[in-house]
């Protein structure tokens, strides 16, 4: 199978308006991925599926990832002149990563038996602009998985034939897999309450709840 750079060149030639990047991956056996903007996501996916050299007809896995807003500190070595002597100094650059949700598609080919090509699409933010194009019209296998990403993360897929909750019940409010999801306060009695459960126990039982500590033996 050709490398990601070659695929990127061919996609840019076929569809000039796409903004496509290759994301590095530092782990030894991992694959790098193609990041595509939402406007051209569907067209790029269609190209990947129908292209004669790639024929990626099998969408194996659709994953949702939550990247909350965070500052990323990267250490960079810079050459600085200090008192006439050039020294190498390590500086910490802080970049603000705005919160967004991400959907990752792992594409393989059953006909040509190669793969994977990893395709990623990112939403604009985590609050209101969480729409992405659905790839279910291209790969039927993405149907239930995109429903799961909608259910657990809140990404709305445009063009999905039946977008509703799948694992949680229909009247559920909230998106459980997000990093900032707070479980509802349904405290159940536990005989060994400690740490967070002890705090919850104290809130529910106004009488002082003794944690399970016996007398310390001499």
């Amino acid at each position, binding site marked *: 199978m050709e490398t990601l750079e070659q695929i990127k060149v061919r996609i840019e030639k076929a569809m000039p308006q796409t903004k496509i990047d290759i994301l590095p991956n530092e782990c030894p056996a991992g694959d790098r991925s193609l990041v595509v903007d939402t406007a051209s996501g569907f067209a790029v996916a269609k190209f990947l599926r129908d292209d004669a050299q790639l024929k990626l007809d099998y969408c194996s896995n659709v994953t949702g990832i939550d990247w909350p807003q965070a500052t990323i500190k990267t250490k960079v070595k810079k050459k600085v002149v200090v008192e006439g002597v050039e020294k190498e100094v390590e500086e910490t650059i802080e970049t603000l990563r705005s919160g967004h949700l991400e959907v990752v598609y792992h594409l393989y080919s059953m006909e040509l038996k190669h793969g994977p090509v990893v395709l990623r699409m990112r939403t604009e933010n985590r609050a209101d602009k969480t729409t992405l194009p659905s790839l279910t019209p291209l790969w039927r296998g993405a149907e239930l998985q995109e429903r799961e990403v909608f259910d657990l993360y809140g990404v709305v897929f445009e063009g999905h034939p039946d977008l509703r909750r799948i694992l949680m019940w229909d009247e559920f409010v909230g998106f459980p897999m997000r990093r900032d999801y707070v479980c509802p306060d349904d405290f159940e009695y536990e*005989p060994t309450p400690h740490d967070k459960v002890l705090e919850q126990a104290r809130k529910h039982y106004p009488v002082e709840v003794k944690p399970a500590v*016996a007398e*310390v033996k001499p």
Partner: protein
Amino acid sequence: MLGEQIIKGMAVTAKNFFGSYVSKDRLTTVQYPEERLPQKGNTRQFPMLVFDGDPEKGLRCVACTICEKECPPQCIFIVKSKDKKPDYKGQPQLYPAVFDIDVSVCMSCSICVEVCPFESIKMNTEFELSEPDRFEGFLLHKEDLAKSNEYYSKLHPDDARDSDAVLTAEKAKAEAKAKAAVEAKLAADAKAKAAAANPAPVATPIPAKATAPAAPAATPNPPPPAAK
């Protein structure tokens, strides 16, 4: 003939049914609880704490809380003691004042056994633990969990032998180290006394010898960090 294969299938069923009166292979049902299958050697049910000799003083656990941290469903609850008691090597160690395991939460994965560095928590094979009380009945305390080394050897003889071998090796190492330390100290004391008893010969050829004892006496201090 239509139905021929169905009749053949019924012949297989008949072979199995009547065969169960004749051969042991076909009669595989064990009438529990009147009969019980013998348990396999490695069966793991719920954890237990091993002690050597006395359930209080011989408890191997030193409340390092590694098992509490590694337990996947977080069912272990440990409170360290405030004082220390001597362990099998003779060194004073902490011990758990409270060691609770909630067996209604425990999933018998034995990760606590794998990560314990002191051979103190092992897997028991008792599973008939039904209790009328759902909460307090399934909370096992230190007294319920403590089982003797003899009981452990009966359950898992190979593992108990390996455990004992590890502990004896550790003890032997600790004793050898202690002995070497004591001998080094005695030698250093003797040499210092000899140097103090002969002050005059310091100016003569003996200085080579007089300065030499100073070196061993000084060894406990700076050279080791430099060697590291």
